[in-house]
């Protein structure tokens, strides 16, 4: 609500400005550009220019340390779509790994933090303590989390199997490795999403709940008709950032499974890093990055389409 009224004020101010003399408008415009300039410089220098240079790299057999960087045209791209080429099998296996991880981690990371945020939004003794507890894992680095889980989940010497009295191959065999990777990531990052939800929840006016209460809505009806619509914008943010973060998964597999079994859990970011930074095949790695970026772009489009359709109804 607050956002909307701000927008109204802003547009009213804009309308007033239109009536002013053009000289003042020009000066205002200049000020706006000046304020934008620092970010623009950073954006152009560190995002736009390298991204364009990356396309140039992807058209070469590129190794920055080598004198000869032969032009290969689209070969780095076509090889990704040619069965039997050096990268075809690995690339698509890695894309699949990323896909599986995203598919399972995103729903968990959208739903579980919401439930936790709902709990943490209620008034009870020790609420601040629990808020901190749920957020705590997020401040740890992936190396810490990864090693911790690697030892806890070790199939033979891990404490989890010890208490279960089982021999579940959490870190070495399908499908358990995915359970571990998703579970570990959810535990690690749910605090961040929960925090965003919590902020969204406190933004929903208590009067709406009072009104719903008076209309005789029960808890579930209040959740469905007040809470969820009130969290709409927050939900878009959470879903979008969680999809992107999950699609970029790297550190978890790198430490927990090293890709095991075989290379089944090596994600696309892992493969791009292997090829670009270990084998110094930067042209091929850049091409893979672009194909992956396009896929992510398509996913984001679908994502926005879905949320917009919800808007229309």
């Amino acid at each position: 609500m607050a956002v909307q009224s701000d927008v109204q004020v802003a547009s009213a101010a804009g309308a007033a400005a239109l009536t002013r003399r053009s000289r003042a408008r020009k000066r205002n415009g200049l000020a706006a550009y000046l304020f934008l300039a620092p970010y623009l410089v950073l954006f152009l220098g560190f995002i736009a220019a390298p991204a364009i240079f990356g396309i140039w790299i992807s058209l070469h057999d590129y190794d920055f340390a080598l004198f000869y960087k032969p032009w290969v045209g689209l070969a780095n791209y076509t090889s990704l779509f040619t069965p039997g080429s050096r990268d075809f099998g690995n690339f698509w296996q890695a894309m699949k790994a990323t896909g599986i991880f995203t598919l399972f981690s995103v729903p968990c990371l959208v739903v579980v933090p919401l439930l936790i945020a709902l709990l943490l939004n209620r008034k009870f003794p020790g609420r601040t303590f629990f808020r901190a507890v749920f957020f705590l894992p997020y401040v740890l680095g992936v190396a810490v989390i990864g090693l911790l889980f690697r030892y806890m989940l070790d199939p033979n010497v891990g404490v989890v199997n010890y208490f279960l009295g089982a021999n579940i191959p959490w870190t070495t065999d399908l499908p358990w490795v995915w359970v571990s990777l998703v579970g570990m990531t959810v535990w690690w990052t749910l605090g961040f999403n929960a925090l965003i939800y919590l902020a969204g929840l406190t933004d929903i006016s208590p009067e709406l709940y009072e009104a719903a209460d008076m209309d005789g809505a029960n808890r579930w009806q209040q959740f469905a008709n007040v809470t969820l619509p009130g969290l709409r914008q927050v939900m878009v943010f959470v879903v979008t950032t969680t999809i992107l973060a999950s699609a970029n998964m790297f550190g978890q597999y790198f430490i927990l499974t090293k890709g095991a079994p075989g290379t089944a859990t090596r994600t696309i970011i892992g493969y791009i890093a292997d090829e670009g930074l270990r084998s110094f095949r930067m042209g091929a790695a850049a091409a893979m990055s672009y194909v992956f970026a396009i896929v992510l772009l398509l996913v984001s489009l679908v994502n926005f389409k879905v949320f917009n359709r919800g808007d229309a109804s």
Partner: protein
Amino acid sequence: MTTTSPSALTRRSFMALAGTTGAGLGLAACGGGSSPAGKAGAPDTGSGGAEYTGPAVELSFWNGFTGGDGTVIKKIVSDFNAQAKNVKVTMNIYQWADLFQKLPAAVTTGKGPDVGALHIDDIPTNAARNIIVPIDQVATALNLQESDFSPAVWQGGVYKGQRYGIPLDIHPLAFYWNKDVVSKAGLDPDKPPTNKDDYEAALDQLKGKGVQGFWVSPFQFTGGFTFQSLMWQYGADAFDADLTKATFDADGSVQALQWLVDMITKGYSPKNVGQDADYVAFKNSKNAFNWNGIWQINDLKSQSKFEWGVGPVPQIGSEKGVWGNSHQFVQLRQLKPDQNKLDASRYFINWVSQQSAEWAKSGKIPAKKSVAEGADFKALTEEYSLAPESEYVHFPPAVPGIGDALAELYTAVNNAVLLKSSPQQALSDGAAKATKILQDNKKKYGV
């Protein structure tokens, strides 16, 4: 001044990495290697490092000694600083994998160190990529003779006829046995098995007492090293002599991997051994035998929970053979070569090379035979017991980009040991990919 820099992997930085993969590569590309490889950074004054007489200089030295060997190298460097006039060395320690990635970027942007230590198989890659420069003069000044080294360690520092690496040590795989576990099973803790029959008999006896005595790791540490040792013992090799074709799917290799997988199917090893679990189990007296690096000696010495022994790896196949690697000193290319620094670096390398008996205390075998046979090294009982291995140790082959091809070998071992494919299938799949990589690399590096 020593800074340890563990890889700081945060989720955010990976998000950033993905978002700007193109960007990062683009920035890295700004350096650019514009001079051909194989040229020394500056003309040589001829001293080759026997002494340094120039003005005061500071040198930086990068390496990957993150383990117990870090303490030893720190002492050696501070000893050097204490005695050297006009030369001060500061050291940075990185994870080996980080160092391998950082060095090229640092060197091509002119921020590289003066001296580094690398593994023997990383030397050709860095020589071909013009990251390190030839140091034949240092070898001459040190009066290094081929006859004073095992051929593998001597040849490993050479690329296209020029010397890039001054050998510091050899660190082979070793055979560790847990004396407590072995005694409990009724075996003689002072007579470890040395051949196939004894080895299997011992494992069988351990199994009878309810101990899985030889945990087989599916990962490079230590399964990949164990497999390669067996491969050479079965008379096979990972690649053909010209390094144009991966041969680790040949009969000998398949037999070697089959033997390793049989350890699991026969119940001498549990299935699904996790990363480091073989060694963790060994240290907790759940595992009797572990084929692990010589570098673990100091770690085992630092505990008193159980008694242990160390010796050369048993001979399972028809020949002797063991995996090993070697640390070598290298000199980094400088965008603005400083003659004084070059001379001082050579002096530093020269001086430290003569301390290789001291260095051996970090769990290494000195590269030089004369030092390895000297009284100082003989006093290191555990390390010295592994000296015979230096006669038949195999290093990863010295050709640019070999790590890319070896990664396929390790994946094959992983697939077979985790029982996802048969040894034959896993090795054939891996070798086909590795051959493709070797051929690509040949084209790329023009060797």
